[in-house]
């Protein structure tokens, strides 16, 4: 585990990007309650708990048309 702490400076930006993506997607899910498929709880879970892929899948496939 000590090795991992040594790499913290490199892992923190990665975690920040993941969080940034997840939060952007979460706000979008909450503010635009129209999806191509699925419902709000489903997308919240996907966006928050599936790292990186979740928000991407939401923006590419799940986001509804305005």
């Amino acid at each position, binding site marked *: 585990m000590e*090795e991992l702490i040594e*790499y913290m400076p490199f892992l923190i930006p*990665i975690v920040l*990007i993941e969080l940034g993506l997840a939060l952007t997607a979460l706000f*979008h899910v909450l503010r635009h309650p129209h999806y191509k498929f699925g419902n709000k709880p489903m997308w919240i879970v996907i966006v928050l708990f599936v790292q990186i892929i979740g928000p*991407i899948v939401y923006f*590419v496939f799940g986001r509804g048309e305005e």
Partner: protein
Amino acid sequence: MNAFIAFANKELTESVRTYKLLIITAVFLLFGMLNPVMAKIMPELLSSFMPDGMTIALQDPSALDSWAQFYKNMSTQIIVFIIVYSGVMATELSKGTLVNMLTKGLSRKTVILSKFSVTSIIWTLSYALCFGVTYGYTLYLLPGELPNLYLAAFSMWLFGILLNAVMFFGSVLFANIYGALLTTGGFTILLMLINIIPKVKKISPFKLVSENMLLLTGELDFTDLRISIAISCLLIIGFMIGAVGLFNKREI
């Protein structure tokens, strides 16, 4: 020219508003950071997962491993890029949102070329971002000199542009996203299949993405790749001419 810039501007705004730019930047930045870090910690991770008493011989990671990760992940990134941007031409055709602008006098050539330019610029910038981050981290974590570093990066970039051109051709041909994706996928599979023939393998554009590591170890150099590069450039021009020609004839 004015129409070209205005339409390109519209494309860029659309890219921002539909979060496409955000996704692509995040993915490319993320992989750019992950490549060197993964290469560096992979041996330690592997040995820490090994049960007691078992050892595996692992070489110390080098700059080469970091770039191996880069080229391995870049093929995934190309797929993400193509999926995210497959809609730029195809959805406008399938929904008919171009009709207004075309009847007001915007030329069809301008539409397709400015769309192609914008996606190519986004691909170039995000690729440069990923390359730059990997380059910087590799320099810091796993220093080492490698031959043909920029040539290898250039060939991968050119292949991305080629797939982009194929995607536009497919979009105009089928006027929907699935057609665009199938054409691009089909083209790639075709390249893989004809790669079995040794004579074709030497000059196939697929060489641009399959032999990056040989470039970095110095086993190949520019003279081995120049025909592939020339053929790729010709294919890009060919597919774009084809796309413009088809688009001119297509009813919208």
